[in-house]
């Protein structure tokens, strides 16, 4: 199906039918002063051949690295079947499924996505997705505040939540008068301390955010944290990596009552790293919160003949009907990314996901063992980690990472910019894509870099 279905003749016939001389005349109520008259700085269009060349050059500029960085976006194997299916014309459309009569395929796919993601997270309802993990967390915070019967406008967020997620949430909720309180973490073990939370008992908050695994890869005491939140009559918001749920308890089963809302980034489920996006955010919740949930929700129903069909549901809370009083200004979703994730989950199945998560975990453990065998390198936190870990290096972390990059290795994420106390630390990750030889190479190269640093400094400065 062509993207723009109207020919010039179609347009002329339609204008003639309504008695308008030109398309521009339909917009003549807009004052002339507001007309921006073109977009300066936007280059001319390119031919397909020129565009492909430009795209290849840009892709080359990214480089081809042996990658050990996770920190929120993960390099997993993407089965070859996924993207040829996703990029079929039926899915690869820019528009969204308002018209049930014309969109049954897309609606069914979203319904199946919702089914898979609710099963993975152990909660009752899912929306059709959000932009990314950070905006999903923000929407979960707004949802918790909106549904708080005591009108508390404060939310507790551990420092172990992804720093970018916290920055996005801060930027978006501040203007609505919602206060985010950052909770400290245990510097020995890298998790949030339930005992320390009692300091916040007298500061009424609508919700406690609980990451699992947290930004350091460390496992949080999610049962105790969830129960603590519920004991204060707060909602528990889970922030999870969907891949790890193949191994970990689903948020719907945390503590005695389960987390109330669960969000995260869906990128690990078949979405390429792709210079940072597009990814997608997911959100599931308990049934009682469904009317507070932002965005699209697809439901299954029957038509007049009793045949199964799918349609958008609970739209009365959305802004195209409820206008300024809508639950959220979210009015779209990442349909294409959701298509990829749905196909990924269907192809992998529970066993496949478990194997990916387990192999990522054992590869990361093997990497940590190899690296911490080097003098001066140690693992920072004592609590169990999943498929990421924090490593302390003997020296400035950014400088050592630069030296590794010069040897073709992206060695990890330097934590100093986000956590001043961890300026000599990096976050490393080895997914199922890494072989023993890859891990050996990383350890060898790091050993070489560190041993050179022990040599008394030459007056000549190295170039890297």
């Amino acid at each position, binding site marked *: 199906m062509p993207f723009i279905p109207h020919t010039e003749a179609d347009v002329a016939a339609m204008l003639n039918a309504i008695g308008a001389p030109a398309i521009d005349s339909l917009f003549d109520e807009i004052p002339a002063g507001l007309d921006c008259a073109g977009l300066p700085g936007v280059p001319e269009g390119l031919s397909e051949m020129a565009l492909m060349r430009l795209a290849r050059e840009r892709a080359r500029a990214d480089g081809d690295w042996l990658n050990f960085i996770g920190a929120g976006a993960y390099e997993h194997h993407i089965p070859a079947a996924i993207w040829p299916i996703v990029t079929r014309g039926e899915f690869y459309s820019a528009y969204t499924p308002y018209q049930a009569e014309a969109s049954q395929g897309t609606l069914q796919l979203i319904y199946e996505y919702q089914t898979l993601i609710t099963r993975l997270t152990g909660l009752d309802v899912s929306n059709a997705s959000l932009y990314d993990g950070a905006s999903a967390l923000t929407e979960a915070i707004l949802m918790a505040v909106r549904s708080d019967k005591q009108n508390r406008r404060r939310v507790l967020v551990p420092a172990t939540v992804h720093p970018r997620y916290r920055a996005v949430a801060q930027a978006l909720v501040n203007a609505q008068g919602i206060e985010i309180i950052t909770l400290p973490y245990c510097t020995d073990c890298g998790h949030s301390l339930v005992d320390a939370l009692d300091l916040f008992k007298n500061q009424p908050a609508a919700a406690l955010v609980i990451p699992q695994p947290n930004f350091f890869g460390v496992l949080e005491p999610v049962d105790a944290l969830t129960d603590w939140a519920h004991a204060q009559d707060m909602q528990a918001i889970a922030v999870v990596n969907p891949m790890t749920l193949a191994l970990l308890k689903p948020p719907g089963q945390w503590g005695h009552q389960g987390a109330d809302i669960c969000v995260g980034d869906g990128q690990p489920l078949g979405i390429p790293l792709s210079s940072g996006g597009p990814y997608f955010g997911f959100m599931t919740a308990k049934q009682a919160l469904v*009317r507070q949930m932002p965005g699209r929700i697809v439901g299954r129903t029957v038509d007049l003949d009793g045949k199964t069909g799918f349609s958008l549901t609970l739209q009365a809370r959305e802004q195209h009907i*409820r206008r300024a*009083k809508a639950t959220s200004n979210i009015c779209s979703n990442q349909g294409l990314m959701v298509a990829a994730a749905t196909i990924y989950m269907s192809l992998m199945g529970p066993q496949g996901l478990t194997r990916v998560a387990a192999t990522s975990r054992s590869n990361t453990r093997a990497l940590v063992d190899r690296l911490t065998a080097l003098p001066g390198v140690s693992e920072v936190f004592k609590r169990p980690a999943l498929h990421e870990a924090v490593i302390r290096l003997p020296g400035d972390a950014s400088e050592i990472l630069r030296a590794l990059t010069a040897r073709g290795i992206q060695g990890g994420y330097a934590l100093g910019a986000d956590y001043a106390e961890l300026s000599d630390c990096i976050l490393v990750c080895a997914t199922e894509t890494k072989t023993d030889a890859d891990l050996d190479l990383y350890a060898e190269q790091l050993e070489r870099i560190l041993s050179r640093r022990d040599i008394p400094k030459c007056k000549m400065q190295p170039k890297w």
Partner: protein
Amino acid sequence: MSIPTDLKYTASHEWARLEADGSVTIGITDHAQELLGDMVFVENPTVGRTLAAGEECAVVESVKAASDVYAPIAGEVVSINEALEAEPQKLNEDAYAHWMFRIQPANAADLDGLMDAAAYQAAVDAEAH
């Protein structure tokens, strides 16, 4: 369309009734439920909340739209009809038999400022034209 003569009304289609204990029971009118169509959800205010006259305090959602319900007069919410949360369609069956919430009025005389049945009938007729 039914408009009982023993109730008071607002232009935003709420009804109010003064009870023997001094509280005021509030619901939506038959005309309102007819406009909205099949009800699927009712969200009442929390008990204890203090309402100003005209304040948005509840939501009724039908298959067509979600609409706010406004407090006819100022007061404190003393009870809500929880049964409606499970069976919102009761509002379609009989909007006067199924109240939404009850308030203790700040000033019972405020009720006198609301419309009687004849005035509400006239307001609905005017809206239709």
